[in-house]
């Protein structure tokens, strides 16, 4: 095939074949960058598009207004409010579910089905089975993830405690809902399909169970307000105040959408941060390889020009070479991006329950990715191609004089006075080409930085989980009551078998205002010195809750722009609904959510309530856990239970699946970068210094001694790169911590020594592998051929 090409293109083909290893290494690094970009941007677009389409098609609500009990007639007033496009009422309640085979109680939600089928707000997608028969009280739809996790199919039964009454229910169908894309129990951090269930039931049946005939306890709305939702929320709160409205909220506080938004933000960050690193390294590699190739081919370039090839024809020859490598990189990148994207989409489908999620990167993502890649190639090779154009043929055909090492630094000479000649060669070579050495060093360091930046998240999240589960929330079980109850209820719970210690809490919905800043939050009232669910300061020391004012989590304080000692307007949205000014009596550290705390007694005083609580934290005897759970499942007053251990396990599983995969690929990519950089540097050194090394072999130096000169230099660079890589890794981790700072999560900037060590090992191993490849080439160095030619 090669015979059909013009002579210059034949040279191109053969030259490329000769540097195939290096070309491939560069293409792979380019490919990693492009692939990473395609994957994250494509996934971002797919996720955002899918979400938008799903929300649109199934009319995901814009606003939720939970109330205690409002007459159905209120709907008309709500619909009249400006900005309301459509409003629907419903009944929604927390339930404890009991499924055969599951010992621990399951927290769930139950919602009413609309009376008439047809397009509704928060419509569900019926996946299997049928809608409940309107006259069959016991029939329900179940959320697909939950049903699948317990192998529940249409026709199967389960039990639910509805308002204190245990009922046997029959599943008639399995459904998905835009409200539960990320099906997570309130207060948890990762979804646990087994431990959180959602059911939909005929409205009449549910109204009967919760004593809500002719009434509702939640309104969902579609609005036309756009981003400026606050006035409408205020109006809704006012309108439904006397029906016990705890505070209207928009999608930004809808838990499933919150998590989805968080994920999209993370993808955005990764897409912004990581691909440029790869492409930067690729540009550097291209710069080095093409630059040095031009140096070694200067006589050929001169010759071509002397024969009458124009500057542009010769430049084009090298541009084609760069083009082929870049094209190869793009092909690798697109393939990798699609593969990773589809893999990620499958992974996401495990967590985000969409009716469909197809990885489809929009054309502009390809265009931007490829365009950026071409730009990077052009930037990387600009100087080399310019050199080709500027090379004077007469000059080019004279062999270059030996590089001048006479301007060696005095300090270096002092330093190297006592070392052997080969080591001196290494140091002088490094000193003579500092830019080149620095570039290689930075390239290697980047791979290590990337590795640390990717793996540190595992350390940090582990610490975050450890702090959350073992320092802050140390209870085994959290029990939420159906209604706020007197503190005596704690005693009842303690009577259950296995219950050891209990600590009460009360959670109240509030609106917090500081000037124009408004947050709808829940304030948790705790015992002043709680032992189970604790409040800790930034040094993780337990905080004694002051008997006045409110203690805010650092994130909430930041969002409200408020400091300790300042006064905050607090509008309570329950009970007598007092509106009071409270002093911020402290700011504490939290890694999850935006919590606020008060002294429980102070809270009840403020609400002019007796000692009222909404639930209790418990320590239980693990030996008697089953008995305890059995008792709990039959306790009518319990609305929800969360189990720490299972939550923690679910978290670790999720971590392994998602972060683990992420870390694995980044380790792979970082290794590829390290190999790409070290291998290329070594190969080029070998081709540049082949004569020198062959001379040494002739002088009687062994292969090992010769390899030492070439590889020793790379070893020095690799070793220098390690601390630099650690620094880059720290910086990358710092950047990631900053951009992952959201209302849902903050991750601490913690990098385990083992993460540094692991990254260093990957780099050293990659460097050693590349060294070995080059060492084998030194073995094959053709002494005679190298010495006879004048290169």
């Amino acid at each position, binding site marked *: 095939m090669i015979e059909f090409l013009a002579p210059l293109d034949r040279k191109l083909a053969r030259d490329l074949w000769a540097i195939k290893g290096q070309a491939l290494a560069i293409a792979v690094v380019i490919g990693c960058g492009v692939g990473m970009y395609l994957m994250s941007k494509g996934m971002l677009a797919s996720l955002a598009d899918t979400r938008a389409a799903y929300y649109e098609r199934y009319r995901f609500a814009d606003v939720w207004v939970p109330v205690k009990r409002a007459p159905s007639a209120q709907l008309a007033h709500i619909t009249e409010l400006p900005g309301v496009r459509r409003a629907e009422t419903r009944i929604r309640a927390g339930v404890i579910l009991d499924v055969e085979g599951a010992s621990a109680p399951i927290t769930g939600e139950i919602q009413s089905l609309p009376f008439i089928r047809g397009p509704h707000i928060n419509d569900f997608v019926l996946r299997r089975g049928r809608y409940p028969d309107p006259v069959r009280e016991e029939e329900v739809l179940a959320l697909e993830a939950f049903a699948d996790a317990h192998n529940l199919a249409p026709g199967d039964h389960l039990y639910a405690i509805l308002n204190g009454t245990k009922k046997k229910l029959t599943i008639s169908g399995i459904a998905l809902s835009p409200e539960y894309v990320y099906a997570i129990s309130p207060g948890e951090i990762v979804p646990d399909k087994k431990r959180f269930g959602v059911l939909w039931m005929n409205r009449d049946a549910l109204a009967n169970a919760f004593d809500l005939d002719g009434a509702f306890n939640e309104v969902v709305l579609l609005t036309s307000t756009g981003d400026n939702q606050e006035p409408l929320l205020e109006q809704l709160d006012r309108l439904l105040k006397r029906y016990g409205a705890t505070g209207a909220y928009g999608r930004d506080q809808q838990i499933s959408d919150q998590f989805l938004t968080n994920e999209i933000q993370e993808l955005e960050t990764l897409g912004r941060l990581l691909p440029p690193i790869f492409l930067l390294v690729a540009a550097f590699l291209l710069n080095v390889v093409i630059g040095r190739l031009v140096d070694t081919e200067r006589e050929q370039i001169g010759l071509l020009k002397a024969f009458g090839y124009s500057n542009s024809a010769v430049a084009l020859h090298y541009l084609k070479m760069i083009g082929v490598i870049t094209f190869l990189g793009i092909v690798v990148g697109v393939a990798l991006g699609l593969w990773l994207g589809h893999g990620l989409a499958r992974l996401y489908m495990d967590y985000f329950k969409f009716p469909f999620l197809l990885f489809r990167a929009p054309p502009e993502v390809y265009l931007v990715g490829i365009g950026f890649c071409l730009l990077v190639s052009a930037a990387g090779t600009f100087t080399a191609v310019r050199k080709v154009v500027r090379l004077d043929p007469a000059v080019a055909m004279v062999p270059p004089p030996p590089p001048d*090492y006479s301007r060696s630094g005095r300090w270096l000479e002092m330093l190297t006075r006592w070392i052997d*000649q080969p080591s*001196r060669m290494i140091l002088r070579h490094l000193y*003579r080409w500092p830019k080149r050495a620095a570039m290689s060093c930075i390239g290697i360091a980047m791979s290590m930085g990337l590795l640390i930046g990717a793996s540190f998240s595992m350390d940090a999240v582990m610490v975050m989980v450890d702090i959350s589960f073992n320092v802050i929330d140390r209870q085994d079980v959290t029990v939420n009551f159906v209604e706020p109850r007197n503190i005596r209820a704690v005693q009842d719970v303690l009577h259950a078998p296995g219950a050891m210690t209990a600590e009460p809490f009360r959670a109240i919905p509030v609106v917090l205002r500081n000037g124009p800043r408004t947050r709808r939050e829940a304030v948790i009232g705790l015992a002043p010195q709680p032992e189970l669910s604790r409040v800790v300061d930034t040094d993780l020391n337990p905080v004694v809750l002051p008997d006045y004012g409110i203690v805010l989590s650092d994130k909430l304080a930041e969002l409200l722009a408020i400091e300790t000692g300042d006064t905050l307007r607090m509008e309570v949205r329950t009970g007598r609904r007092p509106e009071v000014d409270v002093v911020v009596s402290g700011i504490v550290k939290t890694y999850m959510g935006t919590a606020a705390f008060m002294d429980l007694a102070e809270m009840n005083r403020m609400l002019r309530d007796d000692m009222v609580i909404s639930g209790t934290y418990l320590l239980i005897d693990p030996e008697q856990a089953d008995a305890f759970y059995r008792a709990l499942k039959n306790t009518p007053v319990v609305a929800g239970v969360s189990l720490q251990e299972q939550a923690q396990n679910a978290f670790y599983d999720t971590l392994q699946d998602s972060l683990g995969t992420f870390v694995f690929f980044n380790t792979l990519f970082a290794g590829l970068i390290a190999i790409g950089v070290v291998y290329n540097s070594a190969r080029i050194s070998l081709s540049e210094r082949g004569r020198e090394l062959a001379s040494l*072999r*002739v002088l*009687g130096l062994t292969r090992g001694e010769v390899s030492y000169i070439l590889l020793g230099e790379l070893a020095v660079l690799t070793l220098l790169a390690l601390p630099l890589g650690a620094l880059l890794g720290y910086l990358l981790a710092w950047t990631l911590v900053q951009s992952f700072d959201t209302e849902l999560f903050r991750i601490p900037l913690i990098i385990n020594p083992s993460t540094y060590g692991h990254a260093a090992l990957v780099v050293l191993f990659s460097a050693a592998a590349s060294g070995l490849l080059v060492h084998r080439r030194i073995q094959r160095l053709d002494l005679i051929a190298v010495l006879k030619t004048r290169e």
Partner: protein
Amino acid sequence: MEPENLPAIRAEGLTKTYGSGESTVHALRGVSLSVPRGEMVVLLGPSGSGKSTLLNILGGLDSPTSGRVFFDHDELTAFDDRHLTQFRREFVGFVFQFYNLIPSLTARENVALVTEIARNPMTPEQALELVGLGKRMDHFPAQLSGGEQQRVAIARAIAKQPRVLLCDEPTGALDSKTGIVVLEAIARVNRELGTTTMVITHNAAIARMADRILSMADGEIQRTETNPAPCAPAELSW
């Protein structure tokens, strides 16, 4: 110690072929020779006559297709690569047309590169004095002229006190005046240290400084002449 009359290098029926089938190239077609100890031998011949191939085989850089090479009592052709490296390290000094100095090392250090690993070397300073470069020892190759670089290469080759010094077109890249200075250095080493020396050249004028002249063509030694009265390099001209 070996008897004085044993030749330093002896070769028997050396052949060297490259390639196979129709494209076979016969670089050597049965060369036998014997170089007496301490002699200065010039190997003369046009390019392609096989002289470089012969020199490379005698120096342990290459191996023949058939035939045997003896260095003192040892059969070189029986050595493996490790032994050949060892052999070059201890007994052979090479000088090439293009010097092949290490640019990152000074003249002194280029020589030290060899003396560090040799068994019984002279000091780099002595070696450089011997080639007349005592004053330029701390210069880098880039700061030396071609002739000076070649003399550093000679100093580097002889600093280990090799038994044989093999020079492949040592003056090929130099003008005649500089070339003569280089040849003087080679002659001096041969004379003062008694190093058996082989010089390859296609320049017949140089042959007059040799004790023995081997003329090669087509992979064979066509003629062997002995020169009872070698002249000093200074008397040469071309």
